[in-house]
């Protein structure tokens, strides 16, 4: 087992290196750079070439690409993300606050998705091809079909028109004022959680259907066990793994991928930071964000695999 864990951890390195190369190259292909973006933002397009070159020199943009890349890599190896090219502040500082928000939102949305998906999926599987099954499937496919940002607009609209109330627009950390914090984050969490529950519900339904056909379930039924007991003791344990997998894999992407939902609810999360970073050509910031999300994804992937190997004795780790 220890060997397997070590092997999997080492296997993450080439993938992360690939991600680093890809985002590094992609950003350099995007036309313009941070110096140009800043002058454009200030409205003065006719800056002297000298000034711009000085600026680039200060940021290290005059260095050859391979040198920029190795400098960045050397920093990463020491867990030093460097300074934001736009604000000049350390990137760890820039990310810290937004990370708290995005992490909390991702946890809340995943929790909501799990709480919806498991019971609904079981219900649909047990009542297969009945109207209950159809209703659950329509509910979950509708969740996949509705853009979560539109769901967000509808939520805000409903609260505004019927309750004359709007969720708070400024982020308060959970430990400062939990009530204020939840009043703001519960809505985007619901909008996103509903959407992600759909994937889980469908997975739960099909996994459950598969398990219910197994011989040991038939045996349990033949023994005269209650359906409830069969479901909770025998079927659920075997059917739940793929559902938890899919929800945890989504979790990593919820961290950085909620660009549009954050926009609707006016949240200052990692997704918005990413869009800002790209439009400002803030190479260092975008690179750091992408590495963060990719690492989170690979770690979750790794944890899921370990959990599988641990929970399911049939899986051999080599």
């Amino acid at each position, binding site marked *: 087992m220890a060997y397997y864990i070590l092997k999997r951890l080492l296997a993450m390195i080439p*993938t992360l290196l690939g991600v680093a190369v890809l985002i590094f190259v992609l950003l350099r292909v995007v036309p313009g750079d941070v110096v140009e973006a800043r002058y454009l933002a200030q409205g003065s397009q006719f800056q002297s070439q000298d000034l711009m070159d000085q600026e680039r020199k200060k940021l290290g943009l005059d260095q050859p690409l391979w040198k920029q890349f190795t400098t960045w890599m050397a920093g990463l190896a020491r867990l030093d993300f460097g300074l934001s090219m736009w604000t000049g502040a350390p990137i760890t500082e820039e990310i810290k606050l937004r990370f708290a928000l995005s992490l909390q939102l991702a946890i809340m949305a995943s929790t909501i998705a799990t709480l919806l998906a498991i019971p609904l999926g079981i219900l649909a599987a047990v009542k297969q091809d009945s109207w209950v099954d159809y209703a659950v499937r329509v509910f979950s496919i509708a969740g996949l079909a509705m853009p979560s940002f539109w769901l967000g607009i509808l939520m805000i609209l409903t609260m505004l*028109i019927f309750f004359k109330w709007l969720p708070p627009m400024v982020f308060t950390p959970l430990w400062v004022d939990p009530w204020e914090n939840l009043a703001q984050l519960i809505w985007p969490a619901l909008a996103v959680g509903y959407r992600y529950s759909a994937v889980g519900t469908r997975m739960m339904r099909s996994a459950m259907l598969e398990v219910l056909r197994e011989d040991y379930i038939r045996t349990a039924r033949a023994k005269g066990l209650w359906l409830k007991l069969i479901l909770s003791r025998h079927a659920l344990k075997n059917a739940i793994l793929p559902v938890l997998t899919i929800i945890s894999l989504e979790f990593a992407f919820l961290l950085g991928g909620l*660009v549009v939902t954050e926009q609707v609810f006016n949240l200052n999360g990692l997704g918005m930071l990413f869009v800002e970073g*790209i439009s400002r050509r803030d190479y260092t910031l975008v690179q750091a964000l992408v590495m963060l999300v990719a690492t989170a994804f690979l770690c979750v992937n790794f944890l899921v695999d370990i959990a599988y190997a641990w929970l399911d004795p049939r899986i051999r780790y080599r």
Partner: protein
Amino acid sequence: MAVTPRTVEELTRAAAPRSQAIGAVLDFIRQRPLGALGGAIILAMAVVAATAGLLAPFDPLETDYAAMLAAPDASHWLGTDAYGRDVLSRIIYGSRTALMVGLGASFIGATLGAVIGVGSAYFGGRIDLVVSRVMDVFFAFPVIILALAVVAILGTGLGNVILAIATPMVPRCARVVRSSALSIRELPYVDAARAAGFGHRRIILRHMLPNVMAPLLIMATAFLGEAILLEASLSFLGLGVQEPIAAWGLMLRGAAVEFAETAPWMAIFPGLAISLGVFGFNLFGDSLRDALDPKLRTQ
């Protein structure tokens, strides 16, 4: 020349394929009512897109400053937007954008993904290893972030948005196709084709690709709805299709949120159109998967 009277056999033989096709459609409706509903929605969307010029009561680009933010009434059924453009007409024309992006992105993504996936499985060895590693790298990016990066490079606009949405689809498609192509590679007829001296291209395109069509088709249908959603998201951020083109996501941007309280029709109806369209594709795709993939067959 006189028309020769046809025999009964000839008539039935001519009619058989058609009645068989109708029968298959009827079977599909009977066995998979949800899938049929999805198919009907897609069909309706295609008809609306094709006949937009006839159906739309107004020019979708025509501004009418006398009727800005007008509530739904007899002439503007779904109201007007901040420029006095008719919301219904813009939704009708918007179905063209949605279908174009959905079909375009799925087609490009599925085709490239299939070629890469089959090629990777066929050549195996080091090529397969490298391709799989590169795909792993792409998987570590959230879909929308990959699409945003491509838009940042290529710029906005319909064609670029299609490419941006197709990009994240390529690795996903390639992975699915690769795994089914791996099993096909070992089958005797591929060996036979190789023994017959056919080139790599011919074996990949003529012998292997047709046999991974089922999973490919399932992927592509599932991706159609997602592509429409992704286009709406990009346009909503202002990084997709650009004004004044009628696109559903674009209609939800800016004024729709600003005036949500006084003119809610601007925010409600385009979102409904997106949801209904994607809902149709998802329902249909789900049933198609059930019908084509015997392992998942539930009946």
